[in-house]
Structures are given as structure tokens and as C-alpha cells.
């Protein structure tokens, strides 16, 4: 609340008494202000910012969760990270999932959004249908697909033992399956967001393109897609952040198997932290992931802003 507004509200106050009354009112307003902002500030400071600092600290220790205090061991955790084949494999897999998944989710998301863009009952139903995985949650979706694609799952039971397919038991197949299930469970969100984006493209512009003789293909590439640029950025950022931290779905779908082949980066963090009680080592991996996610988000947003400025200039 501003002091100037305070004074206009009390036109009767004047002179020295008025000044001190105003000062008192201002102080009271500031106190109320701080009291209002304090609770979330305490929560965020205590349970997000301090923990980030602690993660950095723990990453330089050998803390196992029980012995206190943790011993400082310098950069040993970070060095070990680069030499640990499990971590390297998980990092590679996570990047692969993120790269393929981001492209697939956005292409599918936009494609299906274009398919369902017209407003009618069937499309409204289909919109609800593609989005339902989001409310079911990754753990249950993982179990569901594991009971469909597992060795004795529905598909293999239906085709018979002779023709059974190693969806989750062969390392290469398992990676492909994991990526497909991830895309299946998350592209509905992209469909919904792209549909919202398409609503913002004015009909008049599309009409104008048609009158100018543009084919549907040209209308898409030259008119709709450029106008969707901000929507694309939102979708890409959301998918990238989501996939860099993929964990629950893999846990339920493959439990990291076969032989640890489908362990993601977060999977490894939580395994080294809790199953192997190496919380210091887990913290080092967490710090790396935080840095990667923040960097990627900032980079994508900055790149978008630069390209928007280039268009404006």
C-alpha cells in the first residue's frame, strides 16, 4: 500500500500530528504486508532454497543418511559421477528419451490438435479421451502397460508363446517401449495446449490465406505454425522438463530392467540415495540435474525471445 494513497484517504490530518499519524499508518501497512508475505516465504526458504544449498553441501560429502556429521570429501562424488557407467548410461538414456519424446509429443500433439480442431461433439469426446492419462498418474499407467506388454502380458498372451515379443525383456525393445509408453501417456497434454493455441489463430487470417489461393499445407506451414510459436515454446519446455525427470513411469513399467538398461537419471538418483544409502552421491547427481534443467529452460526461453525479437525487428 502506498503512502500517498494513505494520505489522500485522511484529508483531515495535517501538520506534525498528521505526519506522525501518516508514518504510523505506513509502518502498520508495512507490518501487515510482511505478515502476509511471510508464510510462503518461510516455506519456500525452508523447504526449497535451504534444501538446494544443502544438496550442494551434501554433494561434497559421503553422507549415508545415518552417520552425522557427514564427512567432506571434496569433488570425489562429482569425479565418481563421470566414471560411473550406470550414471553415464542413465544420463544417455534420459537425454535420448527427452530428445525423441519431445519431438514425438509435439508432432503428435500438434497433429492430433489439428485433427480435432473443429468444435463438435465427437472432437470434444476425443479431447477428453487423449487427456485421461494425465489424471491417472504415471505409476498406475506404468503398471497398466507392464501388464499389457510384459512377458505374460495381454499382447503376448494373445499372440501365443511362439510369436511372443520381448517388449520389456530385450534391452533395445525395452528402451523403445519405454519411450512409446511415455509419449502415449503425455502427448494428450500437448494436444490440449495446441488446441488452445489454435483457438488464438483468427479465422480471418486463415480465410485470407485461402482467398490468396494457399493450399491447406501452405496455410499450416506459413500461417498457423508461425502464429503458434509461443505455444510451441510452452509445449517444448514442459515436455523437456517433464522428460528430464522421468522416473515413476519407468519404475512401474520396467523397474529399471532388464538389467538396469532402462534406468533414468532420477531413477539412479533415488536408487543410489535410498537403496544404496549413498545420499551424498545422490545429492551430487541431483545438483547436476537441477543445473541441467535450469540451463535448458533458460536457453529455450531465451532462444524464443531472440527469435521473437528478430521477427519484430
Amino acid at each position, binding site marked *: 500500500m502506498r503512502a500517498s494513497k494513505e494520505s489522500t484517504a485522511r484529508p483531515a490530518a495535517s501538520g506534525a500530528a498528521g505526519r506522525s499519524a501518516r508514518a504510523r499508518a505506513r509502518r502498520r501497512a508495512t507490518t501487515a504486508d510482511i505478515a502476509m508475505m511471510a508464510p*510462503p516465504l518461510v516455506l519456500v526458504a525452508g523447504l526449497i532454497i535451504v534444501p538446494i544449498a544443502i544438496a550442494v553441501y551434501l554433494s561434497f560429502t559421503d553422507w549415508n543418511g545415518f552417520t552425522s556429521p557427514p564427512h567432506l570429501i571434496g569433488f570425489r562424488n562429482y569425479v565418481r559421477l563421470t566414471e560411473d557407467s550406470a550414471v553415464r548410461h542413465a544420463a544417455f538414456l534420459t537425454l535420448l528419451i527427452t530428445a525423441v519424446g519431445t519431438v514425438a509429443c509435439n508432432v503428435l500433439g500438434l497433429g492430433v490438435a489439428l485433427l480435432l480442431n473443429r468444435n463438435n461433439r465427437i472432437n470434444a469426446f476425443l479431447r477428453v479421451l487423449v487427456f485421461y492419462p494425465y489424471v491417472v498418474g504415471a505409476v498406475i499407467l506404468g503398471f497398466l502397460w507392464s*501388464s499389457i506388454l510384459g512377458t505374460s502380458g495381454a499382447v503376448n498372451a494373445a499372440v501365443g508363446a511362439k510369436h511372443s515379443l520381448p517388449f520389456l525383456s530385450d534391452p533395445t525393445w525395452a528402451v523403445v517401449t519405454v519411450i512409446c509408453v511415455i509419449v502415449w501417456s503425455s502427448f494428450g497434454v500437448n494436444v490440449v495446449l495446441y488446441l488452445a493455441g489454435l483457438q488464438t489463430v483468427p479465422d480471418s487470417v486463415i480465410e485470407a490465406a485461402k482467398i490468396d489461393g494457399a493450399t491447406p499445407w501452405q496455410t499450416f506451414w506459413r500461417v498457423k505454425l508461425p502464429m503458434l510459436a509461443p505455444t510451441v515454446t510452452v509445449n517444448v519446455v514442459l515436455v523437456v522438463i517433464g522428460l528430464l525427470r522421468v522416473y515413476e513411469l519407468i519404475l512401474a513399467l520396467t523397474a529399471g530392467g532388464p538389467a538396469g538398461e532402462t534406468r533414468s537419471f532420477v531413477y539412479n538418483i*533415488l536408487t543410489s540415495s535410498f537403496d544404496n544409502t549413498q545420499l551424498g552421491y545422490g545429492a551430487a547427481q541431483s545438483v547436476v540435474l537441477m543445473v541441467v534443467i535450469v540451463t535448458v529452460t533458460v536457453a529455450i526461453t531465451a532462444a524464443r525471445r531472440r527469435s521473437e525479437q528478430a521477427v519484430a525487428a
Partner: protein
Amino acid sequence: MTARRVGRVLAVALLVLVMVGPLYLMLTNAFKSQHDILAVPFGWPSGGFSLKYLTDALTSPDFNVVAAYGVTLLFVVAVNALNLLVVGPASYAIARGGRRYHRAIMLVLLAGLFIPGQTLVIPVIYVLKALGLIGTVPGFLLFETTLTVPTTVFLFVAFVQTVPRELDEAARIDGASRYGTFWRVIFPLMRPVVATAMVLNSIGVWTDFVNPQFILGPQSGVYTVTTGVYAAISRLSTDYTVVYPNMLLATAPVIVFYVFMQKRIIGGLTAGAIKG
């Protein structure tokens, strides 16, 4: 033109098949015997459908689905209530205050926007241990509420800035305090943005696995739907008469709720993602 139409129909058919297939399997196989699930996973069971497996899952001594529902629902309500109590007045103060420290506080509150909760679990355990709150429901609720702060602050502040300041002035002349002004005058106007925040937070809490699993922990004996299903299924993943009924029980109420609230839920997510 007709080729286009055929392509469109085929694409829609494929989409429906891929999305409905898993639901169909979950629904039908929850009523079949293990033998029938393995023999005719997609078709009509020789032994007929039976409610036995569903009631077995409902009354299983290993995992009480109904209790898990109660617990999860309670967590959803508690986190939403705490979120509004904590973030509401703060967002109002930030939106109305033009000082530099208001902006600084806003930035601090947004700090968690890109920090994945899963990477915070380890150090948060450290903090909660120091506070004696690890493995307790209050500790869990505090952390879960904290994770909702960044997005909610962002949405609320943007909304309050569109509410005319004249309303505050009028309330103050009528003698309302700042809290009174917020809760009685501004908050009732925030219904759409509160609905958006509640949708995002509720789904976040409902589907959360990592925090109830690691902050609350199995030793607390408190299971949410996700951690309970995980505990029940991961041990018996090949006994499909346990797997399918449990999945159906965990999913069906959410799907029914979703079907009735789909406009709110999809709208809420869209608003949250585009503004956030």
C-alpha cells in the same frame, strides 16, 4: 477430398483404439480369473466374469484401497486449504505493493518453478529430520504445500493485478483490515484462478508418488493411492487377479471424477501452463 476424409477417419480410429485399449483391458480383466486373463486377455472368458477378484482386492489385508482413498483425499484437501491460506494473502500483498522488496520476494517465491521436486527429496529429508518432521503427515503436507507455492503465486499475482484498486480503497474506508479486504473483497473475485490452481494442485498431489514414498515412507504406515498400489502390485506383478482389480479400483473414481469435471480440469491445466 474423399482421400483426405478417409485418412482423417483412419487417424481418429487409430487414436481411439490406442487410447481405449488399455482402459478396456483394465476394465474387463479385473473380472476374470488368472487362467482366463492369460488365455483370452482381449476376449470373453470361458469362466465368465466374476466380482470375486474386485471384492478380494477391496478386502485385501495387504492394502486397504478405501483407506488409501480417504488418506489421499484428505491430503488433497489439506494441501489446497494450506495453499490458499498461505499463498492467497501473500499474492495480494505482492500484487498491490510496488516496492522493490515486493518484486524480490516474488522472485524468491518463484525460485522453485523449475526445480524438480524429486531432486529436492534428499536435502528435504535432511531438513525435515532436523525439525523432527520426517516420516510424519505434517512434514509431508508442509513440503507438498511448498511445492505448490511457485505456480500458485504466479497465477494469483497476475490475477489480482487485474482487479481494480478502487475496491481496496472502498473496503478500507468501510473499515476493513488488510486481511479483511483480501478475504472478503478480493478473494471472492478470484474464483476462476483459484479453480485453476486447485485443479493443478489436486492432480499434483493425487498422482504424486515420490514424496509420499520417500518423505512419508512406508514405515509411517500411511499409504496414498499411488504408494499403496505400488506396494500391492510391485510384489505380485504377475498375479493379474491382484494387478487388474487394484488398478481398476485406483483409477475408476478418478476417471469418473474427470469425466464430470473435464472442462474445469482441461481448462485449468491450459490456463496454468500458458500463464505459468
